[in-house]
Structures are given as structure tokens and as C-alpha cells.
């Protein structure tokens, strides 16, 4: 399970840990070297001081110090020691601090003295330097230079203590930095992810009854806004879809219930007042029954088509002939409404493989729509042309001024009618939905285009 928090923390800890750790170590070592260098130089300086203070006396040397000089060699302070040896290793002089002890006899030439760590006579840790030197007698003497060795030792404790402190500080800093990093990461993440928590609990509350709610975007960090915006867009689509289902249910209720209510009231009135019976009653009842029948039939067809329960019989049909036979029943109605029904069909047959019955149903519904809704004394066109290599395009076009401003998507919704009161009772608004279902079943495509200037609606049916 990938956790943003854990990953960020781990990588930051790792990076910082390494950088700070490396830096800390480097700092420590540099400091240590520097301190020891300084110490050694100090030791060397003291050794040279002793050498400078050494005076030849007969065969040997004496070291004379002034009172103020190198108090640390005093008995009381006893932090430093020196001892001078003759070349045979015999102690010539030693500091008061040494009492009767001896320093180890190790040495090196002046340009490369020997320096080593040792345990001082006091028991503490120390560091010593040993230098072999010569003292040249005064010019009066013709004696050869006297050789000797000086060993100076001093406590390392101050340095060690400094180094200990430094180590502590560096470690604490390192730990502190890492701790702060973790804290900072967590707090930043928590602060930034809290709105995400809020958004997700908002989302959890949205259900089918509250689809109008949207997730808040402003409280989220920039990186998360696009996702939330997309989610909101999804909710928009979902809500629209639910709305359409709800509208469908409401429209369905109206389309079926109104004729039934009409039939019922008609019968009840006739029963309650038999002596005042309207002679038209039976004719009206029949008309209602027929209307209901056609509506229910169409609905069933639609239901079946949408669930794919229609069995197709694919055969080769001549589209020119199909168009001509589809047009025939509408010529009479068209002339009644003074519509000019014009067909533009190719001369030669145009063959296509499809289900003949469904195809006729599609054409029939399209023409029915056009002829019903075109205003009187206008033109209705049916055009057919082939599209290479083996396809076709059919266009049914009519004037439809009431469609100005209507989105073409809605045209194919079940029960959609431009008149929201659904007053005109012959068309339930199912025709185009059926057409759409059938075109899907046959693998064709259908599109509606509306030109607002000329108020012409063109429905294009294409097959490849």
C-alpha cells in the first residue's frame, strides 16, 4: 500500500539523513584534524622552547626557564611534562610535574619529530612529541655540538572534551533536523490532505437523491483541483442522466395514464348518467383504445430494441426501392397539409446489406416525424446517395421553427417532445428514440443537424 506520507517521509529522511550525516562527519573529522594539528604545533612549540632554553654546560645541557615560563610544567599545575635525555638515553633534566617518572624515549629528527598518544603519569590521556636536537656551544668553545632529545607531553583532555562536545552537538543537530523534517512533512501533508478528507467525506454523502451537490474545489491544493473538477463533471453527467430517466418515467406516466384516465372517466360518466349518454361515447372509447395500443406497441418495440432482443435478418436490399416504398404512404398526408414532399434518389439501384423490416421502420418514423411537424406549405426532402466504397447516406429534411434553441441531443430522448405539456396526442415522442435504437442495432449512424437561420432540421442516416 503506497502511502504518500510514508514515501515522502522515508525519502526525505534518507536524503537529509545522508546529507546531514555526511556533513556532520566531515565537519567532525575536519575539526578533529584541525584541533590535533593545533595541539601538535603547540607541543612542538613547547619542545622548541625547551630546546631554546637549553644551555650547554660542560658535557651536558641545562635548561633554564624563567618563572613565568610554562607554568603548566609546574608541580602544582602538572598538565604538561618535559624531559631531556642525552643520546645514550639518560635523563638530563625533567619538569617538576614529572616528579621521578620518566617519559617514554621516542623521538624523531627536528624536521620530522615523532608524535604519539600516551598515558601520562597522572593517568590521563596525553600526547607527546620527541625531538632530537643539537645545541651549538658558544663561539669561544671549540667543542662539538651537544646532542640531546627532548620529549614534551601534554594532556589531551581539553581537545578530547571539545571533540566530545562537538560530537554531541552534531548528533543532536542531526537528530533534531531529521525529527523536524519528519514533523514538517507530516504537518504539511496533514494540512494539505485534510481538505481531501473533507472532500471525500462530502463525496461519500452524495447519493441518487442529492446529485445536485458538487465537491468543493477551492479548499484543495492546486495539484488536486483538476481531479476534483473532473469528478464534478462526472457528477454533472450523472445528474443529467438521472434527470433524463426521471423525466422519462414522468413522461411515460403521462403518456399511458392520460388515455386511461380519459377512457375511465368516459365510461364512468356513461354509467352514472345513462339517460344523458353522449352518442359519441363508443367512438371516442375506440379512438382512445387505438391510441393506447399504438403507444404500448411502440414502447414494447423500444424496450426490446434497447435490450437487444430483436433478431435481425440481414439481406441485400435496394435502398432506392426502400425509399420509394417508405414515401408512398405519406404522399396523401403531405398533400393534405400542403407539404411538398420531394425525393432525390439515384437512378440506378443502390444495394446495402441490412434488416429490411427495421430499415423500413426507421425510414417510416423519420418521414412520419417530418410530415407531422413541418409547418403547412413547406418542403420536406428525402435524399439518398451512395458513399464509396459500399456505403450510403440518407437525409430527411424539414422546416422546424420550434426547434430553435433546442439541443440536438434531446431530439432522440425517449418521450421528448418540444411541447412540454405533451398536448398533441398522436405522437408520444417515441419515434426518434426507436429510430436511434434501430440504427444502433443495424450498425448505422444517425445525426441531427439544425440550421438556426433557415430553421431546417436535417436528420442524416449513414451506413458504411
Amino acid at each position, binding site marked *: 500500500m503506497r502511502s504518500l506520507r510514508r514515501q515522502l517521509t522515508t525519502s526525505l529522511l534518507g536524503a537529509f539523513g545522508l546529507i546531514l550525516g555526511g556533513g556532520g562527519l566531515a565537519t567532525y573529522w575536519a575539526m578533529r584534524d584541525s584541533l590535533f594539528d593545533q595541539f601538535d604545533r603547540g607541543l612542538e612549540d613547547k619542545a622548541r622552547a625547551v630546546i631554546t632554553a637549553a644551555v650547554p654546560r660542560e658535557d651536558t645541557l641545562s635548561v633554564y626557564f624563567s618563572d613565568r615560563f610554562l607554568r603548566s610544567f609546574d608541580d602544582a599545575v602538572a598538565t604538561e611534562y618535559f624531559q631531556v635525555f642525552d643520546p645514550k638515553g639518560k635523563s638530563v633534566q625533567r619538569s617538576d610535574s614529572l616528579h621521578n617518572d620518566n617519559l617514554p624515549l621516542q623521538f624523531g629528527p627536528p624536521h620530522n619529530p615523532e608524535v604519539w598518544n600516551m598515558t601520562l603519569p597522572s593517568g590521563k590521556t596525553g600526547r607527546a612529541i620527541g625531538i632530537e636536537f643539537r645545541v651549538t656551544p658558544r663561539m669561544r668553545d671549540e667543542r662539538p655540538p651537544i646532542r640531546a632529545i627532548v620529549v614534551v607531553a601534554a594532556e589531551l583532555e581539553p581537545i578530547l572534551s571539545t571533540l566530545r562536545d562537538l560530537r554531541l552537538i552534531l548528533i543532536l543537530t542531526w537528530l533534531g533536523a531529521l525529527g523536524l523534517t519528519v514533523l514538517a512533512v507530516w504537518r504539511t501533508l496533514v494540512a494539505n490532505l485534510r481538505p481531501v478528507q473533507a472532500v471525500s467525506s462530502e463525496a461519500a454523502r452524495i447519493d441518487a437523491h442529492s446529485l445536485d451537490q458538487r465537491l468543493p474545489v477551492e479548499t484543495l491544493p492546486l495539484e488536486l483541483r483538476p481531479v476534483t473538477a473532473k469528478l464534478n463533471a462526472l457528477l454533472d453527467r450523472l445528474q443529467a442522466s438521472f434527470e433524463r430517466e426521471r423525466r422519462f418515467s*414522468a413522461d411515460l406516466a*403521462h403518456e399511458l*395514464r392520460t388515455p386511461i384516465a*380519459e377512457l375511465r*372517466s*368516459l365510461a364512468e*360518466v356513461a354509467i*352514472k348518467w345513462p339517460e344523458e349518454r353522449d352518442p359519441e361515447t363508443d367512438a*371516442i372509447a375506440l379512438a382512445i383504445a387505438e391510441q393506447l395500443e399504438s403507444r404500448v406497441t411502440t414502447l414494447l418495440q423500444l424496450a426490446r430494441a434497447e435490450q437487444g432482443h430483436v433478431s435481425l435478418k440481414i439481406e441485400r436490399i435496394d435502398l432506392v426501392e426502400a425509399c420509394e416504398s417508405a414515401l408512398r404512404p405519406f404522399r396523401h398526408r403531405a398533400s393534405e397539409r400542403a407539404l411538398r414532399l420531394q425525393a432525390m434518389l439515384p437512378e440506378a439501384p443502390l444495394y446495402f446489406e441490412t434488416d429490411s423490416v427495421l430499415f423500413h421502420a426507421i425510414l417510416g418514423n423519420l418521414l412520419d416525424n417530418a410530415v407531422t411537424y413541418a409547418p403547412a406549405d413547406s418542403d420536406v426532402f428525402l435524399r439518398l446517395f451512395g458513399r464509396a466504397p459500399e456505403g450510403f447516406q440518407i437525409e430527411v429534411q424539414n422546416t422546424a421553427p420550434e426547434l430553435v434553441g433546442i439541443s440536438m441531443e434531446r431530439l432522440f430522448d425517449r418521450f421528448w417532445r418540444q411541447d412540454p*405539456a405533451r398536448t398533441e396526442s398522436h405522437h408520444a415522442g417515441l419515434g426518434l428514440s426507436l429510430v436511434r435504437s434501430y440504427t444502433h442495432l443495424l450498425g448505422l449512424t444517425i445525426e441531427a443537424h439544425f440550421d438556426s437561420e433557415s430553421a431546417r432540421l436535417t436528420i442524416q442516416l449513414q451506413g458504411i
Partner: protein
Amino acid sequence: MRALLIEDSPRLQQSVGAAMRRSGFALDLSGDGEDGLWQAESVDYDLIILDLMLPKLDGFAILRRLREAGRETPILLLTARDAVEDRVRGLNAGADDYLTKPFALEELLARCHALCRRRYHRATARLEIDNLAIDTVAKKVFADSTELSLNPREYALLEFLALRQGEVVSRREIEEHIYDGQVDPLSNVVNSSVCVLRRILSDAGAEPRIVTRRGHGYVFESAPAASCDPSDVS
């Protein structure tokens, strides 16, 4: 009782219209929302039957506008939308009753009468004043257990006056509530109807009287009244 039916299906207008008129309502019809609203605003109906899915202006809008204008006319919603949320929405929007299509005619008529009764603050269907008993469901009138013979117009007038007993009812109010369409303001139809009703009541020995209040209208009360005066002008 005068009612308005706003319904766009012509067949339902016909059936329901016939049924309501034969049940004693003076009924006006409207086939679209705009016209329906205009009618509802111009006349003080005792009852409005309102379909929700109407052309030009839908039922909810009409309902809202009437209630916002302060109209308290009882409104019965008649619609194919039967989901609980539709019913709740309708009732919350100010409707007094809700009936879904298809409906039983008897039920529609009964609910209409119930709403009208409520309007006049009557709990039961039976009005009793002195020795006169009016059964508003059966549309029968009895004086000392003898049934009176009244035509629907006469019955409607008597019922209306009896419901408003003790209150002065103006001639205009009677015109509005008993007659449908527009009554010619110069006609004497209300006066003559009242006169005829008075005669029927006195012939049957009914004790309550219709009293003329000059310049105001008529009052139905249980006290001896002045005689019929054809030259009454309100």
C-alpha cells in the same frame, strides 16, 4: 358552487366537465396554463381542479402564483405524476388535495365536495337550519321530512345561501358562485331566482327565510323575513 377545471385533454374536459355540472357545480373550463391562471385570478372560485402538465404555463407555476397572490381557493391537483415526491411537492406548494390519473369519477366528485365543505367550515355533509335539512351529498332538501323539489340551479342557490347562513351575500357573489360563464350585470336573474326559491320554501313550510338587505344583498336566517319584492336592487 363554482369550479374551474384547468386540463388540456379535451376528452377529460368533456367527461369531467359533464360529471361536475351534473353534480351541481357551475363549471368553467380552461385548456392551457396562461388562460387558466387568468380565469383563476379574475373569479373567486369555490374550487379549482388543476392538471400539472399544461401548455404555456405549468400547474406548479399557477399554484405558486395563486398562493403568493393570497388566494385561498381550495385547489385539487389532478395529474399523472404519482410519485411520492411529486405528491409531497404539490401539497407543500399549496395544493389542498392530490388525485392521480386514472381516477375514479366518484372519488373526484367526493373530494371536490369535501373541499367546498371545508371552505365554508362545515364538517358534515348535512346542513340543518330550523326544520330545513339539506343533504349536500345527495343534493336533497327536506322540510320537516318532506322532500322539496328543486332543479339544480335552485338547489345550488339554496345550498350556497345556507352555507353562508347568517352572512350577507351580495348579488355579485351569488352570480359568481352559482352561474358559470359571465352573467350580464343588467340581468335580473339572481333576483328572480331568489324570488322563486322563497316561494318554494314558504310553500313547503320551511321556517328559515331569505331576507333582503337593501343595498347589500341577501341573508339566509332563521327568523321571519320581509315578503318578496321584485323591485329589489342590491
